[in-house]
């Protein structure tokens, strides 16, 4: 390998994995933690994959399951491949730096392509391994299966890699074209994320039903027909599966070899004719801005603060995704989780704990959404001085941010409530109580997160003026939210279960008889929520001005 290419490749790898330089005990601990977490995820994937294949095998659809799975992996690899190609080859800030060095464009390209290929190879291996091991076990093919899989895996890596290179430029042009159409992007992302959650929950629901009774297939005859027909037409993805199980090899091999040749030729043509041109063009396009012709408009101070805050979030795809898009997905998750819990057993625990389950899911989503407020001050970045020189009190400025977060959380919780009431999963009284509890927790969480950020702001922003990494406050906020969600959710489930007993348990405390019925559950959960709320409000309010004035950006 040419010396420059080797140096550039090493630079790229070092840059990508700079977080894992083994210099002190902390870095070893971090690496160990990452490895343990990766191992746990792989094992979890293996376990779920085993269940997935068993479920399809019970319906006589094992081969179709493999085709569906390979198709999903193919699409995933293509998506990550295109995204990495755009990032590494075209968008990355280092292109501008590297272009100044005495290295040729071809050397930069080859080093980056090698990096991309290695990444694609490793990711494919890690993603596919647990699924293939699970398939070999469920199908009973064992060793014979492992012998057959390296070739289709190689085909998969190369074909998705070449296709990514071909698709990267048109997709990048499309992205550039729509990058400032914020409403369109947010709506599109909201639909995608909501649909993904819905599909995930339907699949999860089937798996839970299957786990309850493994003797019966969860698929109806009509569903079996649809799956069989779909698997037949999933071309070229079905060919990878065909080679793995030795099915119609005379079609699968020539087809994949042909696709490999065509995509390779396509990649060479794209690189030869378009790479340098696109690179130069894109370096200029990266800072593109949009034009929005308006008139001068007067707004009351509070509204103008909220308006500015909204535009700052709305005009950033990253922030919008973290904030608005997840709020859209929340009702879908709440509906499905509640449905599954109720279906777990009509006369069993499921029905009795469904209120607690709804609460848990709503609180978890509320945590994820409100954790965004843990960067409310940090997101000001270099503009932090504005908040200090503006002739508006700090409390008013923070209140405007808080009200914007509140509006989104009220809207998300209200839609959840409407869904739960509309589908008759909850009664009105229960629903309203649930709404109030979740809303109070959201408010408390928002205030606590904002205060944490004021105590330790993190002004490290990227070129687009966005927080690059989540700060410590975000991590703390999520941890706190999950702890509260689990505590309140589990208490609600447990006490609901006790309260639904035919003869509720009771204790005699002196002359007072304590009955563990549903009223007791409402009381305990309300008190816990109240304590969290009051603590958060006091923590936020006490010493707020002093803490804010101490920030010296």
């Amino acid at each position, binding site marked *: 390998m040419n010396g420059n290419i080797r140096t550039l490749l090493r630079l790229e790898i070092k840059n990508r994995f700079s977080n894992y330089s083994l210099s002190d005990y902390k870095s070893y601990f971090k690496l160990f933690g990452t490895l343990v977490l990766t191992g746990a995820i792989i094992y979890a994937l293996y376990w779920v994959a085993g269940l997935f294949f068993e479920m399809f095998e019970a319906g006589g659809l094992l081969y179709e399951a493999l085709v569906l799975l390979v198709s999903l992996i193919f699409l995933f690899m293509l998506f990550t491949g295109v995204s990495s190609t755009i990032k590494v080859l075209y968008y990355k800030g280092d292109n501008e730096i590297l272009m100044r060095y005495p290295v040729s464009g071809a050397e930069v390209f080859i080093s980056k392509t090698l990096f991309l290929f290695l990444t694609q190879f490793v990711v494919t291996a890690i993603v596919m391994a647990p699924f293939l091991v699970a398939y070999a076990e469920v199908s009973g093919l064992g060793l014979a299966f492992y012998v057959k899989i390296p070739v289709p895996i190689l085909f998969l890596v190369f074909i998705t890699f070449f296709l990514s290179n071909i698709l990267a430029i048109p997709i990048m042009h499309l992205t550039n074209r729509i990058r400032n159409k914020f409403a369109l992007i947010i709506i599109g992302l909201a639909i995608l994320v909501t649909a993904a959650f819905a599909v995930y929950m339907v699949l999860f629901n089937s798996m839970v039903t299957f786990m309850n009774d493994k003797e019966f297939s969860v698929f109806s005859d009509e569903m079996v027909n649809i799956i069989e027909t779909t698997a037949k037409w999933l071309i070229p993805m079905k060919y990878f599966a065909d080679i793995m199980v030795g099915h119609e090899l005379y079609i699968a091999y020539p087809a994949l070899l042909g696709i490999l040749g065509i995509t390779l030729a396509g990649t060479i043509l794209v690189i030869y004719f378009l790479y340098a041109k696109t690179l130069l063009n894109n370096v200029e396009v990266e*800072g*593109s*801005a*949009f*034009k*929005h*012709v*308006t008139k*001068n*408009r*007067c*707004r*009351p*101070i509070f509204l*103008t*603060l909220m*308006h*500015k805050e909204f*535009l*700052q979030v709305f*005009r*950033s795809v990253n922030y919008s995704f973290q904030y608005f898009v997840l709020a859209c997905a929340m009702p879908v998750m709440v509906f499905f989780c509640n449905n599954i819990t109720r279906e777990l057993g009509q006369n069993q625990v499921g029905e009795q704990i469904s209120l607690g389950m709804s609460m848990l899911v709503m609180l978890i989503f509320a945590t994820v959404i409100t954790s965004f407020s843990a960067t409310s001050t940090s997101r000001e*970045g*270099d*503009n932090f*001085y*504005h908040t*200090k*020189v*503006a*002739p*508006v*009190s700090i409390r008013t400025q923070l209140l405007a941010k808080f009200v914007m977060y509140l509006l989104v959380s009220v809207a998300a919780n209200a839609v959840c409530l409407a869904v739960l009431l509309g589908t008759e999963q909850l009664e009105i009284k229960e629903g309203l109580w649930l709404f109030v509890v979740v809303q109070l927790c959201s408010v408390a969480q928002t205030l606590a997160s904002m205060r944490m950020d004021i105590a330790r702001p993190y002004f490290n922003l990227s070129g*687009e*003026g966005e927080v690059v990494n989540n700060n410590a406050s975000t991590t703390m906020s999520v941890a706190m939210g999950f702890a509260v969600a689990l505590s309140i959710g589990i208490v609600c489930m447990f006490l609901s279960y006790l309260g639904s007993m035919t003869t509720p348990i009771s204790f005699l405390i002196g002359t007072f008889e304590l009955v563990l019925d549903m009223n007791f559950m409402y009381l305990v959960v309300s008190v816990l929520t109240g304590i969290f709320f009051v603590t958060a409000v006091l923590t936020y309010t006490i010493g707020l001005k002093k803490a804010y*004035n*101490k920030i*010296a950006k």
Partner: protein
Amino acid sequence: MLEISHLYKKYLNSERFSVEDLSLSLQPGEIFGFLGQNGAGKSTTIKCLTGIYPFNSGKITICGYDIAKDPINAKLNMGYVPDNHSVYEKLTGREYVNYTADLYKVSKRDRNERFDKYVSQFKLTKAVDTQIKSYSHGMKQKICIIAALIHNPKLWVLDEPMMGLDHQSMAEILKRMDDHCAEGNTVFFSSHNLDLVAKICDRAAIIKDGKLQDVIDLHIKGNKETLERRFVEITATEQDKINERTLLRRG
């Protein structure tokens, strides 16, 4: 207009004062230059008087309002242009100026009139409805200035306003400073550019190691030369002084 008396400011975890016993008094209608080398304490003083930094002791009043006790009224009388031209880059120029105008409660009539005047004066008409992130360094500085002037502040504070600007942009800003003072307002700006301060200021102060060294009235004949001499004397390092003495000895 601006009264600073016995200002002391020490940063957290710092052993020495960044600003020490600094007192200044600015009159209406004057351009006041604040000279000093990098790290002399110019920006710290400005950040204290604009309310960005709290200070240890002393008093700062703007148009009679104490910045520590009555910050809202003090800030309503002041416009500030920072040294790093930081603005909300996701907003368009117009949105940003309107945001500032709302905070300073500028009426629609005044807003329209001043906006059109400044946008045309600073030649930003074509860019004003485009997102600020596409602006050049100079354009960002100009939109900061328009936002700072939209409420016609009695005290206009600028921190190193000419840094990195071309001659044309500098001339436009200097003209605006002159016009602002002619209307009876005060301009207070920091710089390490001696020539610029000598050319446009009515008075200038020199600061070193956080301490005020001298305040010179530039209307008095010969004081422009005095300013230059004093600035060199004050800011010269010990080595510079040794070199100068050696040269003098050698004739």
